[in-house]
C-alpha cells in the first residue's frame, strides 16, 4: 500500500457567482498561499503540484495549468493536471496520494480552480445557458450532444431509472427538506456562494422544474473559486503537525471507478450508480471500514442534484437502496443525527467550482474533524455522463 500520507494544510477562496476581480491565476495564488500558510510552509518545501481543472473551455485556454506552475512558486518541479469531469478534484487528490505513497515525493500541493461563469450567452444575455452549453460539450460527441444532452438530463436519466425501481423513494417532500437543510448548513460557511440564501422546503417544492424531475433549488449552482490542500508522507506530516499544532488528517482509504458510458446488458445499469458503490467500498476495504454508518462521522458528498445525493448515500451503504429517504425520515442527517452530511452546505449552496469542488469538500471535512474533534471523514466526487465516474477518499484524525 505504500507510505502513509496525510493532509497537513488546506484553504479555499470565497466561492462566488462571478469573480470580476480575479482571473484563475490569482485565485490559484490565493488558495495556494493560504493552504501553505495553514501548513506553515513555503513553496520551496513543496515537491509537486497536482492540478484539478475540469474544463479548458471554462478557462478559455488549453493546458490551463501551464501558467500556474510558476505563478504558485513551483518552477522546475513536477506538475500534473487531472481532468475527470465533476470528479476532477477527487481524482486529483487520489493521484497526489498515489505519488506520495509510492515514495516519489515527500510533499505535494493539490490545487483545484475553475472560472466557470466567464462564458456568456449573447442570445439570452445571461451566463447560465452558456455554462450549461459548455458542459454540454461533455456528452458523447457522435451520438448524444446534438440531442440536447446536458449534465442535468443525463443525471436525471439515472435518477428516473432509480425511481422506476423504487417508486416510493426520493419523495419530493424529502428532497425539498434535504435542500432546505443544506441551505441552513451553508450559513456557517463564510466561503459559500449562497451563505445567506436559506430556503424552506415549500420554496424548494414550488421552484420551477428545470429538467424533470429536478427543480431549480435541487441543483448545484456553478461558481468560481479555488481550493488547495497540502499532502505529505508520514514523517514530514508529523513534523508539520508539530509545527502547526494541527492534527494530521491521514488518508486511510481511496477508491475509484468509471462505469461504461453506454447503457444496456453488460453495460451501464441505469438504475444504479455502481461507480459510487465501488469507489466507496474499495475505500472502505483499504481503510478497514465494515460499517460506514458507524465508522464515518462526517460525509462530504458531491451533491450535483439532491436526488443523486440520496442515491449516492445508498450506494455508499449509509442507507439501503430504495430507502434513501431514511436519511431524513429516520433523522440520520438531521441536526443531532448520526451523520454530519455536507456541513459546508454542499455544492448546492457552497457552489460548484468544478475542479475545485471536491477539494473544497475535503477542506470542509478536515475542518469539521479538527474543530469537532471527530475521527473519520469521507469525501466523494461524481462526474461525467450518467454519473459514470466516482471517487471516494477516507480521512482519519488521530
Amino acid at each position, binding site marked *: 500500500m505504500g507510505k502513509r500520507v496525510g493532509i497537513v494544510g488546506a484553504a479555499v477562496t470565497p466561492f462566488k457567482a462571478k469573480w*470580476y*476581480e480575479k482571473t484563475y491565476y490569482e485565485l490559484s495564488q490565493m488558495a495556494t498561499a493560504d493552504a501553505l500558510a495553514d501548513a506553515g510552509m513555503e513553496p520551496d518545501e513543496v515537491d509537486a503540484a497536482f492540478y484539478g481543472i475540469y474544463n479548458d*473551455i471554462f478557462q*478559455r485556454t488549453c493546458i490551463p495549468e501551464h501558467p500556474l506552475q510558476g505563478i504558485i512558486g513551483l518552477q522546475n518541479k513536477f506538475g500534473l493536471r487531472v481532468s475527470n469531469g465533476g470528479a476532477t478534484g477527487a481524482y486529483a487528490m487520489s493521484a497526489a496520494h498515489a505519488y506520495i505513497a509510492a515514495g516519489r515525493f515527500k510533499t505535494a500541493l493539490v490545487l483545484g480552480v475553475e472560472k466557470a461563469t466567464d462564458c*456568456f*450567452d*449573447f*442570445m*439570452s444575455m445571461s451566463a447560465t*445557458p*452558456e455554462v*450549461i*452549453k459548455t458542459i*454540454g460539450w461533455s456528452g*458523447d460527441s*457522435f*451520438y*448524444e450532444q*446534438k*440531442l*440536447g*444532452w*446536458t449534465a*442535468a*438530463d443525463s443525471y*436525471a*436519466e439515472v435518477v*428516473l*431509472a432509480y*425511481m*422506476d425501481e423504487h417508486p416510493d423513494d426520493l419523495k419530493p417532500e424529502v428532497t425539498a427538506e434535504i435542500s432546505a437543510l443544506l441551505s441552513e448548513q451553508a450559513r456557517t460557511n463564510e466561503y459559500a456562494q449562497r451563505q445567506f440564501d436559506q430556503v424552506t422546503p415549500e420554496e424548494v417544492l*414550488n421552484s*420551477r*422544474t*428545470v*429538467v*424533470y*424531475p429536478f427543480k431549480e433549488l435541487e441543483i448545484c449552482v456553478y461558481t468560481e473559486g479555488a481550493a488547495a490542500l497540502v499532502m505529505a508522507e508520514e514523517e514530514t506530516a508529523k513534523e508539520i503537525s508539530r509545527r502547526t499544532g494541527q492534527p494530521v488528517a491521514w488518508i486511510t482509504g481511496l477508491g475509484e471507478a468509471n462505469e461504461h458510458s*453506454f*447503457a*444496456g*446488458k*453488460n*453495460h451501464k445499469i*441505469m*438504475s444504479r450508480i455502481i461507480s459510487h458503490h465501488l469507489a466507496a467500498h474499495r475505500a472502505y476495504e483499504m481503510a478497514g471500514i465494515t460499517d460506514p454508518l458507524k465508522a464515518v462521522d462526517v460525509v462530504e458528498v458531491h451533491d450535483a442534484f439532491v436526488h443523486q445525493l440520496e442515491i449516492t448515500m445508498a450506494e455508499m451503504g449509509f442507507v439501503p437502496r430504495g430507502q434513501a429517504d431514511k436519511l431524513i425520515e429516520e433523522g440520520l442527517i438531521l441536526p443531532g443525527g448520526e451523520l454530519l452530511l455536507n456541513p459546508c452546505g454542499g455544492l448546492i449552496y457552497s457552489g460548484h467550482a468544478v475542479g475545485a469542488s471536491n477539494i473544497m469538500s475535503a477542506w470542509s471535512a478536515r475542518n469539521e474533524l479538527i474543530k469537532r474533534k471527530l475521527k473519520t471523514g469521507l469525501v466523494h466526487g461524481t462526474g461525467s455522463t450518467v454519473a459514470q465516474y466516482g471517487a471516494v477518499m477516507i480521512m482519519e484524525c488521530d
Partner: protein
Amino acid sequence: MSKKVIPQEAIPDQGGFTVKIEGKEYLVMNDAMFTFYQRSMGEFSDFFLTLRDERKILGCRCTSCGIVRVPPFALRCPECNFAPTEIMEMADTGTMIATPPITYFANSLFQKQVPFGRGRILLKGADTALSINCYTTRGILVPGLINKGTEMKVIFQDERIGDITDIFCVPAAELTAEQLGKKGLLSSELDWERAVEPQLPDETGENKALFESALGELEALAAELNDCARARQDIADWQRVIQIKATGGSFILQIKGEQLAIKPGVEPHPDFTIVCPDLKVLLDGLGYRGSLTQAIMKRALWISKNSEFTTIFKLERMARSLARSKK
C-alpha cells in the same frame, strides 16, 4: 442562405466594458474560442449514411458472444478480447429502458425544442440502448406519457443530414397499425395536429359567471402587462393567435405588436389552443402567482402543440418582468 453551424445571433460584437466593484474598475471583454471542423465520422460513417439515405438503423453483433450493440459504438467487442462484430439492420421499434427526463429549460441552442425528452430506446433485438429524443404527437410532453417500458417507434426527419438528430421517437400507441408497420416512417407522415383536446364540462349559469369574473381580471392584467415596457420586450417580434377554452366560455388571446389582446369568440384557424378547465390557473400564471410550466406538467393546463411551449415561456417571462418591475 444555407444554415450555419453557429446561429448568427449567438456571435457577439468585438469590444468590452468595465464593471466597478468597491471603487475599482475591472475590464470585461467579449470573446470566443472557436474551432471549426471537417470531422470524419470514420467507422460510424455507415451508421449515419444509412440513417440519411436508407432510413434504417444499424447495430453490430459480436461474432463471439452475440451481444448486439446499438448504436454500433464499438465495432470490436471489448468483452471478447476485441472479436470482430457484424453490422446488422435493426428494427425501428422498441421500448424505453427507463423513464426519460424532460428538459423544460435548455441552453439557448435547444430552447426552441423544449420541452423535449431524451431517453434510451432498446430496439427489438438489441442489447444496448440508443440515446434518442422522445416526443408526443398529442400536444405537450408531460411526465407520465412516456415511461420505462413504453413501446416507441423511431421516426425519420424529412430532411436528413447524416446526424443523430435525423431520428426521434414517439409512443407506438399514438400511431395507426399502418404507420407502425411502415419502415422508415417520416415525420411528415405523422398527424401532429391530432392532439386530443381535454373535454370541458358543459356551460352552466354558475360556471359562466365564474368565467366572466376571471376573464375580467385577465383583461385588467393584460392591460397592466401591455403597459410594462419590460414585459412588452418579452413578446417583441412575436405573433400568435391562441384559442383559449375554459370551463364556462372561450376567447381568443392575440399576441401582436408587443401587445396582448383578448377578444371574444372562436377563431377558425388559431396557431394553437390552450384548454384550462379553471381559468384561474392561466390568471395565476400571468400574475406570477404560479407557474404555467408547472400547470402544464400537472395537466391543469393543456396546449395543443409541443412547439408552442416557446409561447408559454414568453408569457411566463412577461409575468416575471411585470412582477420585477413592480418591486
